């Protein structure tokens, strides 16, 4: 997936001189995950900018660059280091269009590697998508495959409004998949059925898709036919896609890595019961991280949802 993102950035920069990249260590070294590898050599230090260590500064300056006519793509090194920039996002990036009634706009993309599973130090494994999804005025997308990473990122760069682009760290090097060479976009706001099924809808995004897919395989062996839905776009959400799947299956399990309380599963469940309560044959189940700090390496397996836990939740909703 890292390569697909790199390719998307490359194509965007080649096509549009306004596109530029800012972040910590994105230039000289190509980023701690090598996602921007080679781009500074290709496009120069003015367009691939190694910034001082200052996240609010990066996003705040990128805001000004965007209002001033550039198309900045900024990288936060890890989600756990994006919080110092939260104020700039919620107070300004998301609002300038509304504040100025369309007179000024801030079309920037904020790339944030997120999620656990690599045994990293504290602050390097977080999934705080909910705090971004709650901000009116930004879109939030999460690719679950290299193909989507490329298409969604190009769509995000094209988008006339700010997009928070979440990159599942665990998938950077995990998935080998041929990605079409040419430039293409994947529309923001559309979910995707990854695996059709009749018995239960499993909803996930990012690296949880992989876990859910394995769970679906396990379940298949038991004769349970799970439909796997990749939300992809957390904001705006493809409500129709979600509802029609649940209406078909009558059961649902929502999976996310983030802590449970006030996590996005709540939002999805609220929508499901608002529009499909009478189709529900069982309570929608949540499989999520716990309401704890993300544990360090030795305990992270206790925290992260895995195929077994997902399968067990499916058993529960099938039994109800």
């Amino acid at each position, binding site marked *: 997936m890292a390569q697909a993102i790199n390719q998307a950035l490359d194509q965007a920069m080649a096509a549009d001189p306004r596109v530029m990249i800012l972040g910590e260590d994105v230039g000289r070294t190509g980023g701690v995950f090598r996602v921007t590898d080679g781009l500074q050599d290709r496009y120069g230090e003015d367009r691939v900018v190694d910034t001082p260590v200052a996240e609010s500064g990066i996003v705040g300056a990128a805001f000004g660059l965007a209002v001033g006519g550039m198309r900045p793509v900024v990288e936060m090194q890890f989600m756990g280091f994006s919080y110092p920039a939260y104020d700039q996002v919620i107070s300004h990036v998301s609002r300038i269009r509304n504040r100025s*009634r*369309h007179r000024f706009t801030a079309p920037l993309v904020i790339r944030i590697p997120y999620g656990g599973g690599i045994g990293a130090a504290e602050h390097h494994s977080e999934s705080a998508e909910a705090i971004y999804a709650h901000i009116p005025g930004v879109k939030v997308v999460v690719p679950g495959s290299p193909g989507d990473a490329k298409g969604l990122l190009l769509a995000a760069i094209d988008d006339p409004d700010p997009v928070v682009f979440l990159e599942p760290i665990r998938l950077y090097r995990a998935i080998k998949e041929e990605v079409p060479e040419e430039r293409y976009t994947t529309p923001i706001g559309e979910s995707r059925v990854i695996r059709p099924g009749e018995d239960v809808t499993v909803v996930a995004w990012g690296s949880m898709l992989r876990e859910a897919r394995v769970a679906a395989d396990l379940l298949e062996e038991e004769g349970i036919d799970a439909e796997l839905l990749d939300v992809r776009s957390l904001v705006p959400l493809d409500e129709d896609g979600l509802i029609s799947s649940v209406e078909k299956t009558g059961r649902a399990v929502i999976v996310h890595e983030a802590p449970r309380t006030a996590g996005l599963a709540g939002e999805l469940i609220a929508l499901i019961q608002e529009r499909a309560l009478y189709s529900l044959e069982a309570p929608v189940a949540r499989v999520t991280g716990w309401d704890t700090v993300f544990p360090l390496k030795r305990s992270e397996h206790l925290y992260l949802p895995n195929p077994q836990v997902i399968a067990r939740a499916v058993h529960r909703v099938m039994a109800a």
Partner: protein
Amino acid sequence: MAEGLQQVLTPEGELSGELPFGIDETRRLYRAMVAARLYDRKGTALQKQGRLATYAPFEGQEAAQIGSAAALRSDDWMVATYRDAAAMAYHGYPRTLLVLGRMGDERGGSPPEGVNALPPSITVGAHMLHAVGLAWAEKLRGRDRIALTYFGDGATSEGDFHEAMNFAGVFQTPVVFLCENNHYAISLRRDRQTAAATIAGKAEGYGMPGVLVDGNDLFAVYSVTAEAVQRARSGGGPTMIEALTYRLGPHTTSDDPRRYRSGEEEAEWRERDPLERVRRYLAGADAWTPGWQKAIEAEESAAIEAAVEEAEAVPAQRPEDIFASMFAEMTPQLKAQQRTLLESLA
């Protein structure tokens, strides 16, 4: 790097430095300051009458604002705060819109094309980074526009001030930081805001020149700003200016300064009134008469009244408008919410 206090005209109206321009320009800028003060008093009055939601008076800071704004080219960027209506109006931000914004109408944040000023910043600190980014964009686009950003002494304590100054230094963006040190951040005195001797002295920590100027001296503010603007425009990088001034009124119309400062202190600064200083100078040069004063006050008052009337005549937004500027195109969710609102009002 912070030099001594720059001054051109003493509080008594005597020359102590080099005049940056002649009598005609002085009269023009004096008039702009008079207009600003009339506007400011009108703002307070309107708020007291319940016609504005809030108002943040700037009386006493007219020279700091007009003197600096006058050093800009009309296509330069201005990124200012809730207290900078004098500077913004001078730079072309329509007074009607400033009033409309204060009435609590988002359309006040939408200046016409050609006016390169962001809507006044309400948050303290964050907007300085926006100025850095705007200036950077101009540089990358090969244009010679610069950005001037205003902020208070209190704002210098925010992390974003630091990050903005640092980015400007590292990337040599064409930006001028103008601190209106009016000695208070709401109730907090400048000497409790930072232990630094001067705010201008902070500039050295970012590798940029820092200049301390008498902020109630129209000529001096103009001169140092013009120099900084010239430096920025010619690729010489950023400058920080500390303009020493005083807010003669309350922080906002809901503040009571007697809780935190003395009448004597206010009276002392009243003596250093930036308008009176220029008036004395003009009078000494036979370029001011009571009759002229009356005439410009009448004309400017009329213009301000007209702006207020125009703002108040703007019809209310339609209910559906609160959804319409969140994105270029409304999301399905926003469309549904908009429908719900309209139905509930039907």
